[in-house]
Protein backbone atom coordinates (compact mmCIF):
# COMPACT_ATOMS: atom_id res chain seq x y z
CA UNK A 1 0.00 0.00 0.00
CA UNK A 2 1.39 3.36 -0.98
CA UNK A 3 1.72 6.36 1.31
CA UNK A 4 -0.94 8.28 -0.61
CA UNK A 5 -3.39 5.43 -0.15
CA UNK A 6 -2.74 5.34 3.57
CA UNK A 7 -3.24 9.07 3.81
CA UNK A 8 -6.54 8.77 1.97
CA UNK A 9 -7.60 5.98 4.26
CA UNK A 10 -6.79 7.96 7.41
CA UNK A 11 -8.91 10.81 6.12
CA UNK A 12 -11.82 8.39 5.84
CA UNK A 13 -11.67 7.33 9.47
CA UNK A 14 -14.96 8.23 10.95
CA UNK A 15 -16.90 7.47 14.09
CA UNK A 16 -20.60 6.82 13.96
CA UNK A 17 -22.09 8.58 16.95
CA UNK A 18 -24.92 7.07 18.92
CA UNK A 19 -28.06 9.17 19.00
CA UNK A 20 -27.95 9.06 22.78
CA UNK A 21 -24.44 10.51 22.94
CA UNK A 22 -25.23 13.09 20.29
CA UNK A 23 -28.39 14.35 22.01
CA UNK A 24 -27.00 14.24 25.53
CA UNK A 25 -23.89 16.22 24.65
CA UNK A 26 -25.84 18.78 22.67
CA UNK A 27 -28.39 19.23 25.45
CA UNK A 28 -25.69 19.59 28.10
CA UNK A 29 -23.77 22.02 25.93
CA UNK A 30 -26.76 24.27 25.35
CA UNK A 31 -27.69 24.09 29.02
CA UNK A 32 -24.15 25.08 29.98
CA UNK A 33 -24.43 28.06 27.68
CA UNK A 34 -27.72 29.12 29.26
CA UNK A 35 -26.30 28.81 32.76
CA UNK A 36 -23.26 30.81 31.78
CA UNK A 37 -25.45 33.50 30.27
CA UNK A 38 -27.42 33.75 33.51
CA UNK A 39 -24.20 34.01 35.50
CA UNK A 40 -22.92 36.72 33.21
CA UNK A 41 -26.21 38.55 33.48
CA UNK A 42 -25.98 38.35 37.25
CA UNK A 43 -22.50 39.82 37.15
CA UNK A 44 -23.58 42.56 34.79
CA UNK A 45 -27.27 42.94 35.43
CA UNK A 46 -27.92 45.82 33.15
CA UNK A 47 -25.83 46.81 30.20
CA UNK A 48 -27.49 50.18 30.06
CA UNK A 49 -26.54 50.91 33.65
CA UNK A 50 -23.08 49.55 33.05
CA UNK A 51 -22.60 51.88 30.13
CA UNK A 52 -24.24 54.93 31.55
CA UNK A 53 -22.69 54.73 35.00
CA UNK A 54 -19.30 55.41 33.53
CA UNK A 55 -18.43 58.36 31.39
CA UNK A 56 -15.76 56.33 29.73
CA UNK A 57 -18.02 53.49 28.69
CA UNK A 58 -20.72 55.94 27.69
CA UNK A 59 -18.39 57.64 25.30
CA UNK A 60 -17.04 54.33 24.18
CA UNK A 61 -20.54 53.38 23.18
CA UNK A 62 -20.83 56.51 21.15
CA UNK A 63 -17.44 55.92 19.66
CA UNK A 64 -18.35 52.44 18.61
CA UNK A 65 -21.55 53.58 17.00
CA UNK A 66 -19.76 56.29 15.13
CA UNK A 67 -16.88 54.21 14.00
CA UNK A 68 -19.09 51.39 12.94
CA UNK A 69 -21.06 53.79 10.84
CA UNK A 70 -17.84 55.19 9.53
CA UNK A 71 -16.67 51.73 8.66
CA UNK A 72 -20.00 50.61 7.28
CA UNK A 73 -20.21 48.07 9.94
CA UNK A 74 -23.06 49.45 11.87
CA UNK A 75 -26.32 48.25 10.35
CA UNK A 76 -26.18 50.73 7.52
CA UNK A 77 -29.12 48.94 6.07
CA UNK A 78 -31.76 49.62 8.61
CA UNK A 79 -31.38 46.78 11.04
CA UNK A 80 -30.84 48.96 14.05
CA UNK A 81 -32.86 47.94 17.05
CA UNK A 82 -33.86 51.38 18.09
CA UNK A 83 -36.27 49.94 20.67
CA UNK A 84 -33.39 49.36 23.05
CA UNK A 85 -32.83 51.97 25.67
CA UNK A 86 -29.28 50.87 26.33
CA UNK A 87 -27.97 53.70 24.30
CA UNK A 88 -29.74 56.29 26.31
CA UNK A 89 -28.91 59.79 25.24
CA UNK A 90 -25.96 58.85 23.12
CA UNK A 91 -27.94 56.35 21.17
CA UNK A 92 -30.84 58.72 20.81
CA UNK A 93 -28.53 61.27 19.33
CA UNK A 94 -27.16 58.80 16.88
CA UNK A 95 -30.58 57.46 15.98
CA UNK A 96 -31.58 60.90 14.79
CA UNK A 97 -28.73 60.94 12.34
CA UNK A 98 -29.98 59.98 8.90
CA UNK A 99 -26.71 60.69 7.22
CA UNK A 100 -23.29 61.82 8.21
CA UNK A 101 -20.41 63.19 6.24
CA UNK A 102 -16.80 63.50 7.06
CA UNK A 103 -13.48 64.18 5.44
CA UNK A 104 -10.43 62.11 5.86
CA UNK A 105 -6.71 62.15 5.24
CA UNK A 106 -5.17 58.83 4.35
CA UNK A 107 -1.46 58.07 4.41
CA UNK A 108 -0.13 54.87 2.89
CA UNK A 109 3.21 53.60 4.19
CA UNK A 110 5.19 50.56 3.33
CA UNK A 111 5.59 48.86 6.68
CA UNK A 112 8.80 49.95 8.36
CA UNK A 113 9.22 53.09 6.25
CA UNK A 114 8.92 56.55 7.75
CA UNK A 115 7.59 58.42 4.74
CA UNK A 116 4.21 57.65 3.16
CA UNK A 117 4.34 56.69 -0.50
CA UNK A 118 0.85 58.00 -1.05
CA UNK A 119 -1.33 60.65 0.52
CA UNK A 120 -5.00 60.96 -0.34
CA UNK A 121 -8.05 62.96 0.58
CA UNK A 122 -11.35 61.26 1.10
CA UNK A 123 -14.93 62.32 1.58
CA UNK A 124 -17.49 59.89 2.77
CA UNK A 125 -21.25 59.87 3.18
CA UNK A 126 -22.95 57.19 5.24
CA UNK A 127 -26.66 56.63 5.60
CA UNK A 128 -28.46 53.85 7.47
CA UNK A 129 -31.10 53.66 4.78
CA UNK A 130 -29.09 53.64 1.56
CA UNK A 131 -25.56 52.63 2.45
CA UNK A 132 -22.20 54.28 2.20
CA UNK A 133 -20.33 56.01 -0.56
CA UNK A 134 -16.85 57.45 -0.67
CA UNK A 135 -14.52 59.21 -3.06
CA UNK A 136 -10.77 59.12 -2.73
CA UNK A 137 -8.65 61.81 -4.37
CA UNK A 138 -4.96 62.33 -4.86
CA UNK A 139 -3.50 65.45 -3.30
CA UNK A 140 -3.64 66.99 -6.80
CA UNK A 141 -7.41 66.53 -6.77
CA UNK A 142 -7.66 63.62 -9.20
CA UNK A 143 -10.38 61.12 -8.40
CA UNK A 144 -8.86 57.71 -7.67
CA UNK A 145 -12.08 55.85 -7.03
CA UNK A 146 -15.68 56.26 -6.09
CA UNK A 147 -17.07 53.31 -4.18
CA UNK A 148 -20.50 52.37 -2.90
CA UNK A 149 -21.80 49.82 -0.44
CA UNK A 150 -25.47 49.60 -1.22
CA UNK A 151 -27.64 47.94 1.36
CA UNK A 152 -30.90 47.53 -0.47
CA UNK A 153 -29.18 46.45 -3.66
CA UNK A 154 -26.83 44.23 -1.68
CA UNK A 155 -23.96 45.30 -3.83
CA UNK A 156 -20.54 46.83 -3.58
CA UNK A 157 -19.75 49.01 -6.59
CA UNK A 158 -16.55 50.86 -7.37
CA UNK A 159 -15.69 53.15 -10.25
CA UNK A 160 -12.05 53.78 -11.20
CA UNK A 161 -11.77 56.75 -13.59
CA UNK A 162 -8.04 56.46 -14.19
CA UNK A 163 -8.48 53.21 -16.11
CA UNK A 164 -12.15 53.74 -17.00
CA UNK A 165 -13.18 50.60 -15.20
CA UNK A 166 -15.79 49.61 -12.67
CA UNK A 167 -16.58 46.54 -10.70
CA UNK A 168 -19.61 45.21 -8.91
CA UNK A 169 -19.42 42.68 -6.16
CA UNK A 170 -22.62 41.19 -4.84
CA UNK A 171 -22.86 41.06 -1.08
CA UNK A 172 -23.17 37.39 -0.27
CA UNK A 173 -25.77 36.17 2.17
CA UNK A 174 -22.97 35.69 4.65
CA UNK A 175 -21.86 39.28 4.30
CA UNK A 176 -25.41 40.49 4.57
CA UNK A 177 -25.89 38.33 7.61
CA UNK A 178 -22.83 39.93 9.11
CA UNK A 179 -24.25 43.37 8.70
CA UNK A 180 -27.38 42.14 10.45
CA UNK A 181 -25.31 40.95 13.35
CA UNK A 182 -23.51 44.17 13.88
CA UNK A 183 -26.10 45.82 15.98
CA UNK A 184 -25.17 48.66 18.29
CA UNK A 185 -25.45 46.35 21.27
CA UNK A 186 -23.18 43.78 19.65
CA UNK A 187 -20.63 46.42 18.80
CA UNK A 188 -20.58 47.84 22.27
CA UNK A 189 -20.05 44.39 23.69
CA UNK A 190 -17.28 43.86 21.19
CA UNK A 191 -15.60 47.11 22.10
CA UNK A 192 -15.93 46.33 25.78
CA UNK A 193 -14.43 42.91 25.21
CA UNK A 194 -11.24 44.17 23.62
CA UNK A 195 -8.61 46.18 25.39
CA UNK A 196 -9.25 49.88 25.23
CA UNK A 197 -7.95 52.78 27.17
CA UNK A 198 -8.99 56.30 27.96
CA UNK A 199 -6.75 58.86 26.31
CA UNK A 200 -8.05 61.56 28.59
CA UNK A 201 -9.63 64.95 28.02
CA UNK A 202 -8.52 67.26 25.25
CA UNK A 203 -9.69 70.18 23.10
CA UNK A 204 -10.51 69.90 19.40
CA UNK A 205 -11.82 72.86 17.43
CA UNK A 206 -12.83 74.51 20.67
CA UNK A 207 -14.76 71.49 21.89
CA UNK A 208 -13.97 69.62 25.03
CA UNK A 209 -13.44 66.03 24.01
CA UNK A 210 -12.50 62.73 25.51
CA UNK A 211 -10.35 60.22 23.64
CA UNK A 212 -10.30 56.45 23.52
CA UNK A 213 -7.99 53.95 21.96
CA UNK A 214 -8.38 50.26 21.12
CA UNK A 215 -6.38 47.71 19.19
CA UNK A 216 -8.42 45.07 17.49
CA UNK A 217 -6.97 41.92 16.00
CA UNK A 218 -10.10 39.82 15.80
CA UNK A 219 -12.25 42.44 14.24
CA UNK A 220 -14.64 42.04 11.41
CA UNK A 221 -14.96 38.70 9.73
CA UNK A 222 -15.91 40.58 6.61
CA UNK A 223 -12.26 41.13 5.88
CA UNK A 224 -11.64 37.49 5.18
CA UNK A 225 -13.71 37.68 2.06
CA UNK A 226 -11.13 40.07 0.70
CA UNK A 227 -8.15 38.40 2.23
CA UNK A 228 -6.23 37.58 -0.93
CA UNK A 229 -6.66 41.15 -2.10
CA UNK A 230 -6.32 43.21 1.02
CA UNK A 231 -5.34 41.15 4.05
CA UNK A 232 -5.98 43.26 7.11
CA UNK A 233 -4.06 42.06 10.16
CA UNK A 234 -4.86 44.66 12.75
CA UNK A 235 -6.77 47.86 13.24
CA UNK A 236 -6.04 50.42 15.92
CA UNK A 237 -8.74 52.95 16.63
CA UNK A 238 -8.70 56.27 18.34
CA UNK A 239 -11.76 58.43 18.85
CA UNK A 240 -12.46 61.78 20.31
CA UNK A 241 -16.00 62.33 21.51
CA UNK A 242 -17.48 65.73 22.16
CA UNK A 243 -18.34 65.77 25.84
CA UNK A 244 -21.30 68.08 25.32
CA UNK A 245 -22.99 66.44 22.34
CA UNK A 246 -21.75 62.89 22.91
CA UNK A 247 -20.97 62.69 19.21
CA UNK A 248 -17.62 61.91 17.60
CA UNK A 249 -15.66 64.86 16.30
CA UNK A 250 -12.45 63.11 15.33
CA UNK A 251 -11.47 59.54 14.57
CA UNK A 252 -8.20 57.95 13.60
CA UNK A 253 -7.52 54.42 12.61
CA UNK A 254 -4.41 52.65 11.57
CA UNK A 255 -4.60 49.52 9.48
CA UNK A 256 -1.75 47.03 9.21
CA UNK A 257 -1.96 44.71 6.24
CA UNK A 258 -0.19 41.64 5.03
CA UNK A 259 0.83 41.19 1.40
CA UNK A 260 -2.10 41.21 -1.00
CA UNK A 261 -2.95 41.88 -4.58
CA UNK A 262 -4.21 45.37 -3.83
CA UNK A 263 -1.24 46.21 -1.64
CA UNK A 264 1.12 45.52 -4.54
CA UNK A 265 2.26 42.50 -2.52
CA UNK A 266 3.69 44.80 0.13
CA UNK A 267 2.96 44.96 3.81
CA UNK A 268 1.32 48.28 4.42
CA UNK A 269 0.42 50.63 7.19
CA UNK A 270 -2.48 52.90 6.37
CA UNK A 271 -3.14 55.79 8.66
CA UNK A 272 -6.55 57.42 8.35
CA UNK A 273 -7.56 60.63 10.07
CA UNK A 274 -11.25 61.44 9.90
CA UNK A 275 -12.38 64.94 10.74
CA UNK A 276 -14.99 67.56 9.96
CA UNK A 277 -17.90 65.35 10.93
CA UNK A 278 -21.29 66.67 9.96
CA UNK A 279 -24.49 65.06 11.13
CA UNK A 280 -27.68 65.41 9.10
CA UNK A 281 -31.26 64.50 9.82
CA UNK A 282 -32.08 63.97 6.15
CA UNK A 283 -30.37 61.71 3.66
CA UNK A 284 -29.67 62.65 0.07
CA UNK A 285 -30.75 59.59 -1.87
CA UNK A 286 -29.14 60.68 -5.13
CA UNK A 287 -25.69 60.45 -3.60
CA UNK A 288 -26.07 56.71 -3.29
CA UNK A 289 -26.94 56.02 -6.92
CA UNK A 290 -23.88 54.57 -8.69
CA UNK A 291 -23.03 56.66 -11.68
CA UNK A 292 -21.08 54.52 -14.13
CA UNK A 293 -20.21 56.27 -17.41
CA UNK A 294 -21.16 54.37 -20.57
CA UNK A 295 -17.59 54.03 -21.80
CA UNK A 296 -16.38 52.29 -18.65
CA UNK A 297 -15.84 48.54 -18.77
CA UNK A 298 -15.94 45.97 -16.05
CA UNK A 299 -12.76 45.28 -14.15
CA UNK A 300 -11.47 41.73 -14.22
CA UNK A 301 -8.71 39.85 -12.48
CA UNK A 302 -6.07 40.56 -15.11
CA UNK A 303 -6.64 44.26 -14.57
CA UNK A 304 -5.57 43.74 -11.02
CA UNK A 305 -2.13 42.34 -11.62
CA UNK A 306 0.17 44.49 -9.50
CA UNK A 307 2.09 46.09 -12.35
CA UNK A 308 -1.00 46.93 -14.27
CA UNK A 309 -3.15 47.99 -11.43
CA UNK A 310 -0.56 49.95 -9.54
CA UNK A 311 -2.30 51.77 -6.81
CA UNK A 312 -5.61 51.85 -8.55
CA UNK A 313 -7.12 49.25 -6.33
CA UNK A 314 -5.64 50.56 -3.16
CA UNK A 315 -8.36 51.64 -0.86
CA UNK A 316 -11.17 50.13 -2.85
CA UNK A 317 -11.22 46.63 -1.63
CA UNK A 318 -11.64 47.48 1.99
CA UNK A 319 -14.96 48.73 0.80
CA UNK A 320 -16.34 46.70 3.61
CA UNK A 321 -14.99 49.29 5.93
CA UNK A 322 -13.66 52.24 3.98
CA UNK A 323 -16.12 53.69 1.53
CA UNK A 324 -16.32 57.36 1.06
CA UNK A 325 -18.02 60.06 -0.93
CA UNK A 326 -16.58 63.38 -1.85
CA UNK A 327 -19.18 65.99 -1.57
CA UNK A 328 -17.20 69.15 -1.78
CA UNK A 329 -13.71 69.31 -3.15
CA UNK A 330 -11.69 71.13 -0.62
CA UNK A 331 -8.07 71.11 0.14
CA UNK A 332 -8.19 69.47 3.48
CA UNK A 333 -5.90 70.42 6.22
CA UNK A 334 -6.38 68.70 9.43
CA UNK A 335 -5.74 70.64 12.57
CA UNK A 336 -6.26 69.22 15.92
CA UNK A 337 -5.97 71.97 18.37
Amino acid at each position, binding site marked *: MKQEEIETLVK*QLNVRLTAEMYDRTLT*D*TLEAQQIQKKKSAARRPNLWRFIMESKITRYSAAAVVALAMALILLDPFGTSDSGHIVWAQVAQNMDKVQMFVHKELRFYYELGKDEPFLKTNVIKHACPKYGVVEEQYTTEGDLMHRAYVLGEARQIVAVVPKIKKYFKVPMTDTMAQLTDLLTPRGLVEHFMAIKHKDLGASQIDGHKVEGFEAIDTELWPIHDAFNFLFPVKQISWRFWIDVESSLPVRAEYEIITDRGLFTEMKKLKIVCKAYAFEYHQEAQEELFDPNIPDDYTELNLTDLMPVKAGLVGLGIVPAGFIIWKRRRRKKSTESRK
Partner: protein
Amino acid sequence: MIVPKSGWPDVEMEDKLLIWRFKRGSGDALRRIYEKYVVYLVTLSTALLNDVSTAEDIVHDVFVSFAQSAGQLRLEGSLKAYLAIYVVNRVRDTVRTRRRQPSSLDEAYSTCSTARGPELSAVCSEELQQLSKAMAQLPYEQKEVVMLHLHGGMMFKQIAKAQNVSINTVQSRYRYALEKLRSSLNSEMRK
Protein backbone atom coordinates in the same frame (compact mmCIF):
# COMPACT_ATOMS: atom_id res chain seq x y z
CA MET B 1 -15.91 40.84 -11.47
CA ILE B 2 -12.85 40.81 -9.29
CA VAL B 3 -13.95 38.12 -6.92
CA PRO B 4 -15.51 34.96 -8.30
CA LYS B 5 -18.86 34.31 -6.69
CA SER B 6 -17.77 30.83 -5.76
CA GLY B 7 -14.45 32.11 -4.52
CA TRP B 8 -15.59 33.54 -1.20
CA PRO B 9 -13.99 31.68 1.63
CA ASP B 10 -17.42 30.95 3.01
CA VAL B 11 -16.40 28.04 5.21
CA GLU B 12 -13.97 30.10 7.22
CA MET B 13 -16.30 33.04 7.03
CA GLU B 14 -19.16 30.95 8.35
CA ASP B 15 -17.04 29.90 11.31
CA LYS B 16 -16.13 33.48 12.09
CA LEU B 17 -19.75 34.44 11.99
CA LEU B 18 -20.65 31.50 14.19
CA ILE B 19 -18.03 32.55 16.71
CA TRP B 20 -19.22 36.12 16.54
CA ARG B 21 -22.78 35.04 17.28
CA PHE B 22 -21.73 32.45 19.84
CA LYS B 23 -19.79 35.06 21.79
CA ARG B 24 -22.94 37.08 21.91
CA GLY B 25 -24.94 34.23 23.37
CA SER B 26 -26.52 32.63 20.33
CA GLY B 27 -27.75 29.11 21.04
CA ASP B 28 -28.28 28.51 17.33
CA ALA B 29 -24.66 29.32 16.64
CA LEU B 30 -23.48 26.93 19.35
CA ARG B 31 -25.76 24.22 18.00
CA ARG B 32 -24.37 24.72 14.51
CA ILE B 33 -20.79 24.55 15.77
CA TYR B 34 -21.65 21.34 17.55
CA GLU B 35 -23.33 19.80 14.51
CA LYS B 36 -20.44 20.79 12.33
CA TYR B 37 -17.59 19.42 14.40
CA VAL B 38 -18.81 16.78 16.83
CA VAL B 39 -18.17 13.82 14.53
CA TYR B 40 -14.68 14.99 13.67
CA LEU B 41 -13.81 15.57 17.32
CA VAL B 42 -15.10 12.20 18.48
CA THR B 43 -13.22 10.53 15.64
CA LEU B 44 -10.04 12.36 16.60
CA SER B 45 -10.45 11.57 20.25
CA THR B 46 -11.29 7.92 19.59
CA ALA B 47 -8.33 7.45 17.31
CA LEU B 48 -6.01 8.86 19.96
CA LEU B 49 -7.49 7.00 22.90
CA ASN B 50 -8.67 3.77 21.33
CA ASP B 51 -11.66 3.97 23.58
CA VAL B 52 -14.93 5.29 22.26
CA SER B 53 -16.76 5.89 25.50
CA THR B 54 -13.89 7.87 27.04
CA ALA B 55 -13.51 9.74 23.76
CA GLU B 56 -17.18 10.67 23.83
CA ASP B 57 -16.89 11.82 27.43
CA ILE B 58 -13.97 14.03 26.51
CA VAL B 59 -15.80 15.61 23.60
CA HIS B 60 -18.82 16.09 25.84
CA ASP B 61 -16.68 17.91 28.40
CA VAL B 62 -14.96 19.95 25.72
CA PHE B 63 -18.24 21.21 24.30
CA VAL B 64 -19.61 22.01 27.76
CA SER B 65 -16.44 23.96 28.61
CA PHE B 66 -16.53 25.63 25.23
CA ALA B 67 -20.13 26.72 25.86
CA GLN B 68 -19.06 28.29 29.14
CA SER B 69 -16.11 30.07 27.59
CA ALA B 70 -17.94 32.47 25.29
CA GLY B 71 -16.88 35.53 27.26
CA GLN B 72 -13.19 34.68 27.31
CA LEU B 73 -12.85 33.12 23.88
CA ARG B 74 -9.97 34.58 21.85
CA LEU B 75 -9.76 32.73 18.60
CA GLU B 76 -6.75 33.42 16.40
CA GLY B 77 -6.78 30.47 14.02
CA SER B 78 -9.55 28.30 12.67
CA LEU B 79 -12.38 27.10 14.85
CA LYS B 80 -11.81 23.51 13.79
CA ALA B 81 -8.16 23.61 14.85
CA TYR B 82 -9.08 25.35 18.10
CA LEU B 83 -11.55 22.63 19.02
CA ALA B 84 -9.16 19.91 17.92
CA ILE B 85 -6.41 21.25 20.17
CA TYR B 86 -8.92 21.55 22.99
CA VAL B 87 -9.74 17.85 22.57
CA VAL B 88 -6.12 16.82 22.17
CA ASN B 89 -5.16 18.57 25.40
CA ARG B 90 -7.89 16.72 27.26
CA VAL B 91 -6.87 13.44 25.66
CA ARG B 92 -3.28 14.00 26.73
CA ASP B 93 -4.39 14.61 30.29
CA THR B 94 -6.39 11.41 30.19
CA VAL B 95 -3.53 9.45 28.70
CA ARG B 96 -1.19 10.78 31.35
CA THR B 97 -3.46 9.99 34.26
CA ARG B 98 -4.74 6.67 33.11
CA ARG B 99 -1.71 5.45 31.26
CA ARG B 100 -3.95 3.49 29.00
CA GLN B 101 -2.34 0.89 26.85
CA PRO B 102 -3.51 1.11 23.28
CA SER B 103 -5.77 -1.70 22.30
CA SER B 104 -7.45 -0.97 19.00
CA LEU B 105 -9.73 1.62 17.59
CA ASP B 106 -13.19 0.26 18.19
CA GLU B 107 -13.92 -1.45 14.94
CA ALA B 108 -17.65 -1.16 15.33
CA TYR B 109 -17.31 2.57 15.12
CA SER B 110 -14.96 2.75 12.19
CA THR B 111 -16.60 3.44 8.93
CA CYS B 112 -15.92 5.07 5.64
CA SER B 113 -18.09 7.14 3.45
CA THR B 114 -21.23 5.33 2.40
CA ALA B 115 -21.30 7.50 -0.69
CA ARG B 116 -18.82 5.18 -2.29
CA GLY B 117 -21.37 2.39 -2.74
CA PRO B 118 -21.95 -0.76 -0.71
CA GLU B 119 -19.37 -2.95 -2.45
CA LEU B 120 -16.52 -0.54 -2.16
CA SER B 121 -17.67 0.34 1.27
CA ALA B 122 -17.21 -3.25 2.39
CA VAL B 123 -13.67 -3.35 1.06
CA CYS B 124 -12.99 0.03 2.54
CA SER B 125 -14.36 -1.04 5.85
CA GLU B 126 -11.93 -3.94 5.96
CA GLU B 127 -9.04 -1.63 5.11
CA LEU B 128 -10.17 0.79 7.77
CA GLN B 129 -10.31 -1.94 10.34
CA GLN B 130 -6.76 -2.84 9.48
CA LEU B 131 -5.81 0.80 9.64
CA SER B 132 -7.47 1.14 13.04
CA LYS B 133 -5.39 -1.70 14.38
CA ALA B 134 -2.24 -0.27 12.85
CA MET B 135 -3.00 3.17 14.24
CA ALA B 136 -3.42 1.71 17.70
CA GLN B 137 0.16 0.47 17.58
CA LEU B 138 1.60 3.91 16.90
CA PRO B 139 3.22 5.92 19.69
CA TYR B 140 0.79 8.51 20.94
CA GLU B 141 2.69 11.56 19.65
CA GLN B 142 2.90 10.11 16.15
CA LYS B 143 -0.79 9.29 16.17
CA GLU B 144 -1.59 12.82 17.19
CA VAL B 145 0.41 14.26 14.31
CA VAL B 146 -1.19 11.91 11.78
CA MET B 147 -4.72 12.65 12.93
CA LEU B 148 -4.30 16.40 13.22
CA HIS B 149 -2.58 16.67 9.87
CA LEU B 150 -4.57 14.25 7.77
CA HIS B 151 -7.91 14.28 9.47
CA GLY B 152 -7.91 17.79 10.87
CA GLY B 153 -6.15 19.44 7.97
CA MET B 154 -3.70 21.22 10.27
CA MET B 155 -0.31 22.35 8.99
CA PHE B 156 2.83 20.91 10.54
CA LYS B 157 3.65 24.37 11.80
CA GLN B 158 0.36 24.58 13.70
CA ILE B 159 0.85 21.12 15.13
CA ALA B 160 4.38 21.99 16.20
CA LYS B 161 3.03 24.98 18.08
CA ALA B 162 0.32 22.90 19.72
CA GLN B 163 2.76 20.16 20.71
CA ASN B 164 5.40 22.66 21.71
CA VAL B 165 8.07 20.98 19.61
CA SER B 166 9.95 21.97 16.48
CA ILE B 167 8.46 21.57 13.05
CA ASN B 168 11.24 19.09 12.22
CA THR B 169 10.15 16.91 15.10
CA VAL B 170 6.57 16.98 13.85
CA GLN B 171 7.64 16.09 10.33
CA SER B 172 9.77 13.24 11.64
CA ARG B 173 6.90 11.93 13.71
CA TYR B 174 4.68 12.04 10.67
CA ARG B 175 7.24 10.26 8.51
CA TYR B 176 7.85 7.52 11.07
CA ALA B 177 4.11 7.09 11.61
CA LEU B 178 3.38 6.71 7.92
CA GLU B 179 6.23 4.27 7.54
CA LYS B 180 4.94 2.16 10.41
CA LEU B 181 1.40 2.25 9.09
CA ARG B 182 2.58 1.18 5.66
CA SER B 183 4.62 -1.61 7.10
CA SER B 184 1.75 -2.84 9.29
CA LEU B 185 -0.85 -2.63 6.56
CA ASN B 186 1.32 -4.29 3.95
CA SER B 187 2.16 -7.16 6.23
CA GLU B 188 -1.55 -7.55 7.03
CA MET B 189 -2.36 -7.64 3.35
CA ARG B 190 0.23 -10.35 2.72
CA LYS B 191 -1.41 -12.63 5.31
